């Protein structure tokens, strides 16, 4: 699918841990107003590529391009100043303090409002509760609220659907659609294939230390090797895109 130049690219990334090469030459792209979904088996290097792309892990080689600027040694705080927001699988908000405190910090730094973030995530009643007192699902919603409040130009979210209840997964889908509609370039990953395929504009398959751009969800579902080696027989025919939930 032709979308013009990507807003964000992690290009030709290599990374080894000890003697094990996890990424041989992996790339991922994000376009403004589009969601790129990275899929691949456990241990294929999705999280490693995202962490390198977000500047929290040093690559052996490779570069990051964002907003027309090239980062040879990307660092998250530099990318964040240029509009990136990183949501790692382990969470992105300190458990001390309330969502109100954290959103105030984000607004003080980058401006904007957080009414929509609260409404979309249903956190109005919990906004002043210390995060340490929230359940895992509520904490996840608080983190999604922080992503929306930041209104980033580019969001990298590692496995945001992991361990999320169906109702919260629906809220997350709403949040991703909201950010996409605002022109955010979103790169995400996970194993919840139906949910991810429903929001995906582009699918990237991470396998054998490299990446393959498969096109849209329909093309990805029809990709024989991807369907055989990743989706497996039970998901193979149900991975076609559903209507997005708005």
């Amino acid at each position, binding site marked *: 699918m032709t979308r013009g130049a990507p807003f964000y690219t992690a290009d030709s990334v290599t990374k080894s841990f000890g003697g094990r090469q996890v990424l041989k030459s992996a790339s991922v792209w994000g376009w403004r107003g589009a969601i790129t979904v990275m899929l691949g088996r456990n241990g294929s290097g999705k999280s490693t590529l995202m962490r390198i792309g977000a*500047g*929290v892990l040093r690559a052996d080689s490779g570069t990051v391009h964002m907003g027309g600027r090239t980062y040879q040694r990307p*660092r998250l705080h530099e990318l964040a100043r240029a509009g990136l927001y990183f949501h790692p699988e*382990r969470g992105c908000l*300190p458990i001390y303090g309330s969502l109100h405190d954290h959103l105030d*910090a984000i607004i003080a730094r980058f401006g904007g409002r957080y009414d929509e973030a609260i409404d979309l995530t249903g956190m109005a009643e919990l906004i002043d509760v210390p995060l340490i007192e929230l359940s895992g699902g509520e904490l996840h919603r608080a983190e999604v609220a922080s992503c929306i409040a930041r209104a980033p130009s580019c969001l990298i979210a590692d496995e945001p659907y992991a361990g999320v209840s169906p109702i919260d997964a629906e809220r997350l889908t709403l949040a991703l659609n909201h950010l996409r509609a605002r022109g955010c370039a979103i790169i995400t990953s996970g194993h919840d294939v139906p949910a991810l395929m429903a929001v995906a504009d582009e699918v990237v398959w991470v396998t054998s230390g490299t990446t393959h751009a498969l096109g849209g969800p329909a093309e990805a579902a029809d990709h024989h090797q991807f369907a055989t080696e990743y989706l497996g027989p039970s998901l193979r025919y149900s991975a076609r895109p559903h209507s997005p939930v708005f």
Partner: protein
Amino acid sequence: MFWLLLRLMLLFITRGKNGMGTPSPGGMIVAAIAAGIIAYSELTFFRERTLAANLGVWHGWYAVLPAAVSFMIDALLWAFVPGLREFTWIELA
């Protein structure tokens, strides 16, 4: 940065004043405490570091501060607990 600091601390602390490569029990205890502090800060401050970086703030202090505290503990122990300076694993054996 984290692993470099940890290695440097282990090197300096376990060396103590008993000569290169001769760890003392006191040094090992301090090294264990230092490693514990860093491991704790790595786990505890992961979210703090991520939020700080997402706000565009360099987050290295979360790695540097525990290391500095560990060095101070080490220095105080070696300064005020003379037994730690004399007692070596070889003597213990």
